[in-house]
C-alpha cells in the first residue's frame, strides 16, 4: 500500500467526486463531518437545497466572521447562512422529511459498509458509549445513501466487508461508496466497481476489499 500513497484521492477530491454523484438530486442532507465538505464542490450552475436535520432546508455557505447568527447553525453547530427559498422547521418535521423518504440523497461518513449495503458509522467497537445523532434516520430514510470514507483504516484494516463487525447504523441502506481509491455501487448482483482512482487497477482495489467486486465495468475516476 505504501507505494500507492501518492495516488490516494484527497478528502477534497473525494468530496468533489461525491458532488458529481449528486447530479439530478435537489434535496440533500450532508452528514456531520467530512460529508459537509461536499457543499463546497457543487457547481455554481447547479442548485441544491441542503437540509440540516436540526431544522433547516436550504443551508447556504458558512457565515462570514462577524455575520454569525446565534440562532442559525447546522447540525454540527457551524455558523451557516441560508439560501433564498430556505425554510425552518421543528425537529419532528425535519425528521418527517428524512424518515418519510422526501430527500433525494444523503452523504454519510462510514466506518464499514457490507456487501449487502449495511452501514456502520456511529460507534467504534471498543467504545462503550456512542452518539446515534441523525445518522440512523438518514440511512433508513433518504432515497439514496452515499457513503464517503477512506477505503481502509489507518491500520490498513478493510472497511468494505462481507459483514460489518462494527455496530450497525442501518441494514441494506447504502447505494454508493466513494472512497479514496474507488467508486463502488451496492447492487442486487453484488458490489460493482464503477470507477478507480488514477494509478490503481481493479485488482489493486479488490485486494483492499473483502467481498468480491464486479470489475468488468470499471472506468477511470470522473474528473469534472
Amino acid at each position, binding site marked *: 500500500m505504501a507505494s500507492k500513497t501518492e495516488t490516494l484521492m484527497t478528502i477534497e477530491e473525494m468530496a468533489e467526486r461525491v458532488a458529481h454523484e449528486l447530479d439530478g438530486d435537489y434535496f440533500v442532507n450532508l452528514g*456531520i*463531518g467530512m460529508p459537509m465538505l461536499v457543499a463546497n464542490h457543487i457547481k455554481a450552475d447547479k442548485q441544491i437545497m441542503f437540509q*440540516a*436535520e*436540526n*431544522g*433547516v432546508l436550504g443551508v447556504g455557505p458558512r457565515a462570514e466572521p462577524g455575520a454569525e*447568527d*446565534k*440562532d*442559525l*447553525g*447546522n*447540525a*454540527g*453547530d457551524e455558523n451557516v447562512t*441560508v439560501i433564498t427559498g430556505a425554510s*425552518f*422547521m*421543528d*425537529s*419532528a418535521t*425535519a*425528521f418527517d422529511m*428524512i*424518515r418519510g423518504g422526501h430527500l433525494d440523497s444523503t452523504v454519510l461518513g462510514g466506518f464499514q459498509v457490507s456487501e449487502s449495503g449495511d452501514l456502520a458509522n456511529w*460507534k*467504534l467497537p471498543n*467504545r*462503550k*458509549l*456512542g*452518539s*446515534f*445523532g*441523525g*445518522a*440512523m*434516520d438518514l440511512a*433508513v*430514510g433518504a432515497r439514496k445513501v452515499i457513503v464517503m470514507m477512506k477505503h481502509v483504516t489507518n491500520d490498513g484494516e478493510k472497511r468494505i466487508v462481507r459483514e460489518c463487525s462494527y*455496530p*450497525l*447504523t*442501518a*441494514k441494506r441502506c447504502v447505494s454508493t461508496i466513494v472512497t479514496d481509491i474507488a467508486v463502488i455501487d451496492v447492487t442486487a448482483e453484488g458490489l460493482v466497481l464503477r470507477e478507480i482512482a488514477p494509478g490503481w487497477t481493479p485488482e489493486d482495489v479488490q485486494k483492499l476489499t473483502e467481498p468480491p467486486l464486479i470489475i468488468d465495468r470499471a472506468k477511470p475516476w470522473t474528473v469534472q
Partner: protein
Amino acid sequence: MNKVYAGFAEAVADIGDQATVMVGGFTGRGTPSRLLLALREKGPKNLTIVRNDASGGWKNPIDVDILIEAGMVKKVITCFAVFGSPKKVSRLERAALDGKVEVELVPQGTLAERIRAGGAGIGAFYTPVGVGTEAGVGKEVRVIDGREMLLEFALKADFALVKAYRSDSLGNLVYRKSARNFNPLMAMAAKTTIAEVEHIVEPGGIDPNDVMTPCVFVHRIVEAGNGE
C-alpha cells in the same frame, strides 16, 4: 392565570428530586441557558434529562452537562452522548463510564417523534429506523407494508425547559431560525412547560398565523433578553 415570572429561580423552584426534565435546543441553539443555570442553583437530585445532545462542548458552554457535572442527574435520554472523536471525553461519557449516570441512546428522529407522541396522546408508534441495530435491542419488530419496523413508546416529562424568541404574556411562542428544533415538541410533552423568551410582548403582539407553540402548552414564561 398570570404566566409571566419575574425570575428564573422562581420559575424552576418546584423542580424537585426525581423529576423528568426535557430541555430544548440543538447544540447551543435554542437552549434555555438561563433556566439551566437556575436549575443547577436550585440543585434537585436524581433527575432524568431528555435532550437532543447531552455531550456539551458546543459554542454555547451552558448546556445540560452542567447538571451532570453537578451530580444532579441519574439518567439521560439523548441522541448525542459522546463527541465524535474518542480523544475528547464528554462529562456525560465520563459519568456514564463511572456508573454514575445511565444513558438511553435514541436515534434523533425517533427521539423527536417519541416526544411529539408524548404531547399528542399517542402511546407508541412504529418506525423503520433502528431495526437490526443497537437501537432496536429488546424492542418489538413488526412488518408493516413489507418493511420491518420497531415499536417505540411515547416520552413525557414533568417539566420542559424551552427557549423561544418571542412570547406574548399568554404564552404563545415564536421561535427563530434553527433555534426552533426540539422546543415546540417538548413544550407539548410536559406537565409544566417553562419558557425562557428573549422578548415578551402584549397579547395581540403576535399574528395568530405566526404562533408556533399555542399558549395552551406553556405554563410559565421568563424574559431573558437576548444578551447571552
